[in-house]
């Protein structure tokens, strides 16, 4: 383990709206605590790319997201005690940091008679009546909820299915219909489960309205991504990691939609006036995967020192590109719309995956497209000690970017939660040396006649 000898400041978000976005995290936690006091149902949910959480919320479930709460605990450096509890329970310390954080908290919750301990960060997580797991992208996100049975015994876990067929298989004629049918069928099963649990019927009119709202919010979130193609970059990752909360977790919330209207306006204003997020943008980099939440100020420092703007992040946290009209024309069933949205999200880079031999279409392939669209000079890979599913493809991404796009990569090891494995001094040294590499590859791209 490495001690951090340099203390970084908290991140200076460059957007005013990004500075306001923390409201949404607090809103989720506070509404669940309020709901508990009022005897309303509470669920803990994994992020599920808008597949199941909208349905649960439409049925009156108040959802909180332990992954998001884990990032919050890490950002205020309050995760360590929970990690130690998890380790003490016998869970390997190589498991997901968010999971260990949540397992540690669940144990304290149980020991406190399911009353949130006073010292829980952000007010803590209220006791759930169900756990909404997801197998999409990551095994931890159902194995972790399953393991909470030791502390929340009797709280049922609903496992959302989201198919992940391969890039070649995506193009087989029957594949799409099979996938969509499967997703819709599973959502119907989930509704039946929730109806039994909550003893109420799904209000499909309400669900339809929420899905419609979510589509609108996601479209705005994508508009922000489009604006970010500008040079200089109107916003950076430090902003994105704040503004992603409302579209990732609350796209069905009209307040999130209103928020994104303000984000679009603010970013557009910067684009229209040629205002960069950082004053001296010299290098444009992409960032993969989740950031070191405990040390976000690092990105401000490298912006200031080297003129590095982080212009794009991993595919999974972004809104999908809007679906073609013919995909949703005449589709009114909200479950079908949800299925098409999720399917589109998970498959939209399959062509890139084949073109660049960079399957899967999730994680790796999108960066190959982003490189040109966002005129990237480099890629920073942040292998996460405790988030392997997000890390598995990083080395391949580096390989393929360099080989196919003449965009070099640098590896800065760390973790989402555990600050002990993030060595700031080493990170600064690597980035400093990497600026020369980016200069070199910029010249190679120029000689190769590439557009950036």
């Amino acid at each position, binding site marked *: 383990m490495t001690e951090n000898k340099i203390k970084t400041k908290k991140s200076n978000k460059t957007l005013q709206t990004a500075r306001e976005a923390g409201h949404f995290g607090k809103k989720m936690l506070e509404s669940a605590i309020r709901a508990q006091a009022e005897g309303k149902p509470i669920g803990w949910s994994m992020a599920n790319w808008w597949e199941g959480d909208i349905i649960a919320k439409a049925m009156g479930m108040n959802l909180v997201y332990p992954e998001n709460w884990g990032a919050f605990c890490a950002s205020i450096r309050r995760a360590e005690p929970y990690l130690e509890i998890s380790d003490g329970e016998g869970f390997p310390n190589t*498991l997901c940091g968010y999971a260990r954080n949540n397992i540690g908290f669940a144990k304290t919750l149980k020991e406190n008679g399911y009353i949130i301990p006073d010292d829980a960060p952000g007010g803590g997580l209220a006791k759930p009546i169900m756990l909404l797991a997801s197998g999409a992208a990551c095994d931890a996100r159902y*194995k972790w909820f399953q*393991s909470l049975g030791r502390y929340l015994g009797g709280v049922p876990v609903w496992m959302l299915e989201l198919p992940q067929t391969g890039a070649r298989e995506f193009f087989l004629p029957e594949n799409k219909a099979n996938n969509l049918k499967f997703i819709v069928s599973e959502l119907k099963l989930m509704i039946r489960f929730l109806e039994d649990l909550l003893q109420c019927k799904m209000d499909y009119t309400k669900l339809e309205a929420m899905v419609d709202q979510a589509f609108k919010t996601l479209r705005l979130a994508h508009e922000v991504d489009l604006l970010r193609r500008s040079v200089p970059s109107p916003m950076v990752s430090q902003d994105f990691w704040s503004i992603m909360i409302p579209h990732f977790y609350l796209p069905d919330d009209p307040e999130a939609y209103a928020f994104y209207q303000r984000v679009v306006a603010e970013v557009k204003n910067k684009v229209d006036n040629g205002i960069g997020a950082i004053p001296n943008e010299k290098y444009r980099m992409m960032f993969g995967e989740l950031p070191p939440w405990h040390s976000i100020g690092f990105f401000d420092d490298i912006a200031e020192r080297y003129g590095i703007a982080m212009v794009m992040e991993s595919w999974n946290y972004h809104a999908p590109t809007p679906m073609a009209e013919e995909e949703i024309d005449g589709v009114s069933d909200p479950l079908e719309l949800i299925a098409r949205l999720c399917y589109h999200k998970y498959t939209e880079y399959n062509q890139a995956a084949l073109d660049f031999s960079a399957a899967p279409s999730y994680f790796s392939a999108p960066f190959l497209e982003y490189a040109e669209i966002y005129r990237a000079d480099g890629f920073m890979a942040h292998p996460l000690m405790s988030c392997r599913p997000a890390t598995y493809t990083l080395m391949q991404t580096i390989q393929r970017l360099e080989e196919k796009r003449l965009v070099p990569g640098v590896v800065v090891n760390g973790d989402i939660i555990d600050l002990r494995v993030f060595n700031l001094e080493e990170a600064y040294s690597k980035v400093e040396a990497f600026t020369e590499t980016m200069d070199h590859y910029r010249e190679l791209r120029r000689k190769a006649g590439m557009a950036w």
Partner: protein
Amino acid sequence: MEEQKKMGLQRAVDIYGHRGLRARQLKEEGRKVFGYFCCYPPIELLTALDIVPVRVLGNMDEPVTDADDYLPPVMCIFCRSAFDLGMKAQYNYFDGFIGAHACDGAERTAFIWQNYITSPCNFQLDVPHTTHGPALNFFKEQIALFQKTLEEFCGTQIQPDDLKQAIVLHNRQRALVRELYGMRKPDPPLISGTEMLQVLIAVMSIPVSEGNDLLQAVIDEVTTRANPHEAKRRLLVWGSLIDHTAFTDLIESSGFNIVVEDTAIGTRPFWHDIEITTDPLDGISDHYLNEVLCPRTFRETGSTYQADTDARFYYLKEFAKHWNVDGVFANIIRNCDIHGYEVPVVKDYFSEMGLPVLVIEQDYSTAALETLRTRFEAFAENLDGY
């Protein structure tokens, strides 16, 4: 071939020691050979097309070097090792490669494998996480697409009777493996953990009919020979797979006989037969989704913690009882999330049975094994208190 004339345990040792040899020979004779990952690809379809299925494994003896540029050190080292062997051309005789979404590590490795180690035919099999009805339907549809892919590659269609015949052959193999497992019930067991591992890896490296002949010969030999094994503490191995005899040798020279393994090279691929159904894909899909009991598949949670663990691990009670187990080794290849999350739960479950559990996270390297000896020896001694 002289090697093929050997039968029984010595033949298993030979195949285990030269895993790709027989498949390479068959390829030279014109047979097609496909590699597959983990226990989820339905290899009956390969057999029905006269394709030789070869299970892709790693090598604890071989330092991971070539894979370093493609797979990060934080991922499952078994997957990294398997891919490393692929990059070192040790699987360069494959005509096809079948990846499966068994777990994140296997899924991503399979994708990256197909990006860098090209074969004429590839298929990525998505395996649902649940056993819901729609999941089973979807899985069957996936297998049907797999079948079409194979048929197009081979230029011939699988006839239902050929597929049923393949299922019969593989069921025969499953039954023979279970029979062999039965020979580990006596004390001392008639066959050691190391011998069993050699046999199981051997049958995963050769055509099913040859594997069945080998198993029958091993059963005959083990039944009739003077038992060379001595009574020791009886160990159940649960968790990540073990695919190297250096590991089983270490355990069995530290005061234990391994008598049953709930792992992906142990009971999991062999414990249930495939039902012969009118549409053979019904039986195949049901078997691979419902009956391969790996914690990667989510099972419905019960109304209590106890009910939940019973629903997921009931069969471990049967293993413990019928194989008269004294203790359990929970083997976790470092960074194996599927088993890592289950460690406290499985410990609870075995504790309820009065069985102590030794949990070891290990680095899948023979070079790091010897340091584990004292832990096994201490565990064996501690069993006296139970």
